[in-house]
């Protein structure tokens, strides 16, 4: 990381915070080792972090360039995907059947949306030499929940469009049929998160810059397998981590019920990603191409680990009271965020291994950032949704 603090010390607080955020973004990109990966991520980085295309207050247009793959012979080419398609059809559910008449009180102490110590605000208060009143704590928590669910919603919008693209571009016919169910799933997810925010919380946060970068990058990449890798493995892994944590800690029954249904869908999506990519990466790609994807996945994993820093909430609450650097430290060490990383990477790393993107050459890098501990987990093709929910209810430590 650049020593931005020394450089920006003289600027007014708000401007300094902005310049600091540019430096931080820059440093993320300077750390990318593979020039091809840099080339594929950098334009999205500029659009997301510098130009903030997702926050301009107008619909964002993203140009896409990829080939739709038609097959007029309708081959039965992937029995495992056909099976997944069958299960997906049976697993459809009606979002209207959730208990939407539930009263959601975001300030209820008995059934809190998130536990008080999700972010450990008392430590933060002590560091800042202040205390938070119960009202402030409740409002802070409300901001955080709205922020998280808003990011879920934005992520699901990306997933909806990416699922459409992947359905067009994938070369397996059974995969296309399965893909159609995923499009439906993602549409439903957009609906339920939007409805929850709209009807129960009354607040929608803007898209986080990093999430925008990831979505932009995989929408604009012309290679179907990169879209696939980005969406089905990385973003779905991120989603499973985030949904899983909230599912585990929330005491609000409607949100819990909603997430349980969404997680079951997401488990199928990751499974599909593993099936399609394992075939493609191990059989179709050259070693150089495989390496590029391996590096790309590592960089995006880092982006997901390091960069979801809830800055929008920082800007709302603490800008001027503490530096971004301080806030970063606080968020990185918050119990809820630690748990989020744990759930996310315990799903993601085994999946990367299963699709062949965890060769000997990359392992030391994962080792260095502390992600190798998840190497031996079960990949999505060997895991049912019930198992995942059971694990969340039990084993994961909070």
């Amino acid at each position, binding site marked *: 990381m650049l020593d931005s603090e020394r450089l920006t010390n003289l600027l*007014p*607080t*708000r*401007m300094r*915070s*902005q*310049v600091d955020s540019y430096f931080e973004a820059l440093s993320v990109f300077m750390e990318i080792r593979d020039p091809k990966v840099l080339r594929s991520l950098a334009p999205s980085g500029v659009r997301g972090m*510098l*130009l*903030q*295309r997702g*926050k*301009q*207050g*107008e619909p964002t*247009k993203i140009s896409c360039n990829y080939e739709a793959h038609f097959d007029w012979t309708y081959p039965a080419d992937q029995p495992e995907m056909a099976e997944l398609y069958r299960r997906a059809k049976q697993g459809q559910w009606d979002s209207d059947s959730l208990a*939407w*008449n539930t*009263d*959601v*009180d*975001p*300030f*209820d102490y008995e059934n809190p949306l998130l536990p008080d110590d999700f972010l450990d605000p008392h430590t933060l208060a002590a560091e800042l030499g202040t205390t938070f009143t119960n009202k402030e704590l409740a409002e802070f928590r409300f901001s955080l929940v*709205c*922020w998280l669910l*808003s990011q879920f919603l934005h992520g699901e919008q990306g997933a909806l469009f990416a699922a459409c693209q992947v359905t067009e571009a994938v070369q397996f016919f059974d995969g296309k049929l399965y893909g159609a169910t995923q499009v439906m799933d993602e549409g439903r997810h957009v609906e339920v998160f939007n*409805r929850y*925010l*709209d*009807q*129960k*919380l*009354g*607040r*929608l*946060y*803007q898209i986080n810059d990093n999430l925008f970068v990831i979505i932009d990058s995989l929408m604009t990449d012309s290679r179907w397998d990169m879209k696939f890798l980005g969406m089905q493995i990385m973003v779905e892994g991120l989603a499973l981590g985030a949904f899983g944590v909230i599912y585990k800690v929330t005491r609000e029954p409607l949100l819990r019920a909603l997430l349980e249904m969404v997680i079951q869908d997401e488990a199928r999506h990751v499974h599909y990603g593993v099936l399609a990519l394992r075939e493609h990466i191990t059989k179709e790609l050259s070693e150089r191409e495989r390496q590029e994807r391996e590096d790309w996945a590592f960089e995006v994993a880092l982006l997901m680990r390091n960069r979801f820093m809830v800055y*929008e*909430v920082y*800007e*709302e609450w603490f800008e001027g009271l503490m530096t971004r650097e301080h806030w970063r430290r606080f968020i990185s060490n918050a119990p809820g965020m630690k748990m989020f990383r744990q759930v996310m990477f315990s799903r993601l790393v085994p999946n990367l291994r299963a699709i062949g993107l965890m060769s000997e050459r990359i392992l030391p890098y994962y080792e260095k950032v502390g992600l190798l501990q998840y190497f031996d987990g079960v990949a999505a093709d060997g895991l049912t949704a019930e198992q995942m929910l059971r694990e969340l209810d039990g084993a994961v430590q909070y």
Partner: protein
Amino acid sequence: MAAASAKSTAPRRRFKLVPRVLEPRVGQLRRDLRVVLANLRGERAPAWLARDGSRYAGAPAGLATRELEISEVIRETADAVSLVLRDPSGASLPPIRPGQFFTLLVELDGETLRRAYSVSSDCSIRDRFSVTIKRVPDGRVSTYLNDHAAPGMRLRALGPSGEFAREPARKLVLIAGGSGVTPMMALLRTLLTREPQRELALIYANRSQADVIFADALARLAVEHGPRLAVLHALEQPPPSWSGAVGRCTGPTLAGMLDDTPLASDPDSEFLLCGPTPMMDGARELLGARGVAAARIHSESFLAPQLQAKAAAKVRAPQAVTIVTAQREVGVVVQPGQTLLEAGLAAGLDMPYSCAMGGCAACKVELERGEVIMREPNCLGPTEREAGQVLACVACPSAPCRVRVRERGEA
């Protein structure tokens, strides 16, 4: 001013600097630059937007609506129709008093719109009734029903509601303007046939002869019931052969018509008013000047209450509300876009209500603590407001509240 700006933009339109195909790109570039500059100045767009829940509000939760079927559509004038409504299964309807109204819920473009319409038929008929709907300029529901209502169509409804003409005196002077004649028509049709002692006079004002709703029916009633019913028309734009009163139904015109009505100077008669607000205000003032006590004057107005834009900004967050009934105290959360009544009913509370659109006061509750913002206008009077009463069906809390529900029968 307008001419000057038109002049200055005209040449620019002819010699455009940016070809049309590039316009989106230039627009994007401009937005990008604006964002970067604003960021450097430390200005940011608000991190979040308030959502009011209206998108998924759909059917108001918990309101016990009744489904009705249109059995007949009667074209009254070019701009007014009567819909004859009945229970789809043919079952008899709850008792309706003349003067009461129904709230019709009409779904248009994914939104459920509520409008109040007075019953215009003889209320002693128990298996059907009619409402008469005059087209309001830019009125979505009245236009839709005037153009599209057809036999067999079903509507959801609340009601009957309203206290207008609850216990009418034996002698009544009815003063109506335009579509305000609808409750009067129910009174005439019901009372004249059932109660031979009744004496009624109707003073009925319209813009032109083509606007007169029920012209033939009124003429027939006047012939049938002779001296017990007097009908006096006033027109703003009369045809050449017009023999009735001329002008807007206020001041001298109304005074002249009252002079022509013996009932109006009878100390036992009561006055019922329904029509446009200026007309009713004028009539009330004139009657007062003629020595008619306020207690003998009753009026009905039709309102489509809405949150004023400024007030709406205050009800963008969910609020905790304690609702106290005779039996229990229940905490509910009122979501943005929801009313006290909807939240209470959704929580299973037995809250009284009828029209659910601020027109009948059946849902009046006492605000013990906190603050609510009511959709306006509604029928709550200034003394009730001062006493801390609010209408649950149009009240949106803007702070945590505690409200007490009246017991049944409590005034």
